């Protein structure tokens, strides 16, 4: 595309992105098993999660000349000196903050139940912030979504429906365990809950109404509150809340990736794949998708810019001529269109 290509006036977003940086939570008490600069492969141990984090206090007096305690570092009674070594052996955890007015006494985050979390993606650890996050620059390419919920997960990509379809709860069984399912245009909270129960690792859907998202989040909160560790389960919504099919280039890409391992990321919302042998679908430069408006989800060919046009409710907007299904071009607000570039 040249600098003066009129198509640059149509809103666009990248079809796929390279070098995406993902953020994985590392709350106080959790311990990173990697450090900055670590090269990760998918499934490598990433962090140790404390499932029942609580606060206790310990005397952290250390030997003369030793560095002073620092928040975010690990502490155990073996690090204490003299009589303070007699501290409770189970009192091992992360230093949180000193206790006010009591020299050498700190609050520490302790717990009894730990589980190891693995990396959903391969890539390079670019930062580890104890008590905050682990940042990874992922290897491979990413398809961005509009929102995500749950936890980042990994699994083989499976197409459960066509890009226009709905997935009903009855359509999910244990045969889908370990997969990340692409479910077309819509799914409800019941089907999401069943998918998680059947061992599905993630759902990719074009749109999800707010009510279903709210119900799913409530279910997720209950799941996280349980002590029994469950495999991570993520939800990736590609477009928004109003019903529309998955954009055809993305659907075609998913078809080519079917059966391969992919990662579903929550922060930022994205689906990541590292498959250099998979050719990306070619996108016609005139291809556009109606992202919003009464015919949201329709796709067509843009034939030119129409200038300012008057639309319903007397609203004046910049528009383009769009041909859909071979019909004569219609004026369409530029704000309703999107291109994948």
């Amino acid at each position: 595309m040249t600098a003066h290509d009129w198509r640059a006036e149509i809103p666009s977003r990248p079809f796929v992105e390279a070098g995406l940086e993902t953020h994985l939570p590392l709350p106080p008490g959790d311990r990173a098993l990697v450090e900055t600069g670590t090269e990760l492969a998918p499934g490598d141990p990433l962090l140790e999660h404390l499932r029942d984090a609580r606060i206790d206090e310990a005397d952290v007096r250390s030997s003369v000349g030793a560095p002073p305690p620092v928040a975010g570092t690990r502490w155990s009674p073996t690090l204490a000196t003299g009589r303070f070594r007699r501290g409770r052996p189970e009192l091992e955890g992360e230093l949180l903050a000193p206790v006010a007015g009591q020299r050498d006494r700190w609050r520490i985050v302790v717990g009894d139940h730990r589980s190891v979390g693995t990396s959903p993606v391969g890539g390079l650890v670019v930062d580890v912030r104890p008590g905050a996050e682990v940042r990874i620059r992922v290897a491979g390419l990413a398809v961005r979504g509009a929102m995500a919920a749950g936890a980042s997960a990994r699994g083989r990509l499976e197409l459960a429906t066509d890009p226009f379809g709905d997935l009903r709860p009855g359509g999910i069984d244990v045969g889908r365990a370990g997969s990340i399912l692409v479910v077309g245009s819509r799914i409800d909270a019941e089907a999401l809950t069943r998918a998680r129960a059947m061992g599905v690792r993630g759902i990719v859907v074009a749109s999800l109404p707010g009510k279903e998202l709210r119900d799913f989040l409530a279910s997720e909160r209950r799941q996280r509150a349980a002590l029994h560790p469950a495999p991570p389960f993520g939800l990736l919504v590609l477009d928004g809340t109003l019903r529309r099919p998955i954009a055809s280039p993305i659907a075609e890409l998913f078809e080519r990736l079917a059966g391969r391992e992919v990662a579903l990321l929550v922060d930022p919302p994205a689906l990541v794949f590292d498959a250099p042998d998979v050719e990306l679908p070619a996108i016609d430069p005139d291809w556009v998708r109606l992202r919003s408006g009464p015919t949201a989800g329709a796709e067509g060919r843009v034939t030119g810019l129409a200038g300012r046009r008057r639309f319903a409710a007397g609203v004046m907007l910049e528009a383009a001529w769009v041909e859909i299904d071979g019909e004569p071009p219609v004026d369409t607000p530029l704000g309703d269109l999107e291109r994948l570039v």
Partner: protein
Amino acid sequence: MSSEPRAFATVDQGTATVAVSLLGRLDGRWRLLGSTAAPASVPADALLHRLRARLDAADPGLAAGVGLAAAEAVADLPRVESRTTPPPVLVVVAATERVVRPLAAAAATAGWRVRAMALEGAEILSIASALADPSVTAVLAGASDPPGADERPLVGELAALAAAATQRRPDLVLVLAGGMSDAVNRTGLPVAHDRPGATLLAPAVATADGARLRELLDGVRGGASDGRRALATSTATLAEVLRRRIEVVEVGQSAGARVAAAWAPGAPAVSVTWATVAGAALIPPGADDTVVDEIAGWLAAPLDRLRLRDRLRELAVAPWGDATGEGAQVRLAAARAAVARLAGATPAFDALPAPDLVVAAGGAWSVAPGPAVALALADVLRRPGVRALGLDHASLLGPLGTIEDEAERRRVVADLRDELLLPLGSVLMPGALRAGHSAGRLGIVAADGPVELDLVPGGLELVDLPPGSRAIVDVRFRDTVDLGLRGRQFALEVAGGLGGLLVDLRGIPMRLPDRLERRRELLAAWQGALWTGVDA
């Protein structure tokens, strides 16, 4: 711009909207040659090419005269650019709710997304987690100076948590307000001076009603080209040029801003007050049911709560999508609710003298018809008096505010004084109006000749007064009312605009019916009178 170019461009890069304008020097003064706006993903250069091509097609001589005959000219065009970014997150912590509340209120008007927490009754672990959250840019830990009796048992714990947070997150900006700086010094846990994040000492929130704390927090947040700070600068310049009191209400995708600038004869400088409120964004992130209900309260279209919530989520994801028909109504209802939140967060502005001119700015208004914007302003900003209404239609105020040289900025604004704002009309809004069949009569010589109106309390009357025109209104009330001044008879000069003159007798504050259907009918009736094609 010191070498006197013949044209320059302005770019207002927002989180949802990019707006560009072309300005050319004609007959020794700057003129607006064209402006346009688009979703933020569209490159500003593409829009400048659009404008240049249109200028060249419409008037090739003019385009050549300002050096814009060739497409390549766009690349070399000088630009003034402002940029707004999503508000960063600030955690406000204090020992008790009593202390947190004013701190959070001050921070909320300084352009931060505020998460307020009191240590009293909270779990230490949740506070420590909140302070270390990677999405947090800064922590404001505050205490009274000296700490009150309710704070003293907790202030040491809080100081320790704040100091420890800087060890976990050395990049964290730590602002210690009031008695908190002493408390941190007493923890024995040093806050490193050479860490990437700054440690700043601030006055207690009670000092100067929080103005100094707010000023400090505003300075920590924004850079030199911050669009909202630039908006305050250019509003002050505009007030000086027009010799008026001006109030700007800006609503964007990421925040809202309110600026009041007052020129006064004999005063050494224009006084300017501004606030940036993240909660006054068109759709605040994580908007809860309260926000949905606020917006539903301004919506004439019959949308149920679930559908409205989904439409609002879509609007948050794609702010330029679905901008026509019902979508336009949803957008303006959201803009009204945002202005109401903005006004609610900035009560200090209501103590300032009433403005002569109210200007709507920001991406939220960019796709709305002018008269509909005039009605939205009148609906929400309820204050007795007569004022003109304008729209920053070309989004010039932000970029022009970034011109550092004050004299040059004044010269550009003075040149553009007739083009900078789209005149929306005037609103006459009496306060202390008594209920009854008739409150008096109004006479005006309008576009269609003399108009006489019976002033019926509760109503909204429209008088056609085209843009560029001015008229004298003669108003006679039966009882004393408040129109900025208290009285019964007034002769007032009003300016015309796209919405004409709005004689707004709906009361201050305006009370809408509780019943949803009746409320929608009323809103639809008012909207229908001003918004052509709204039912299309």
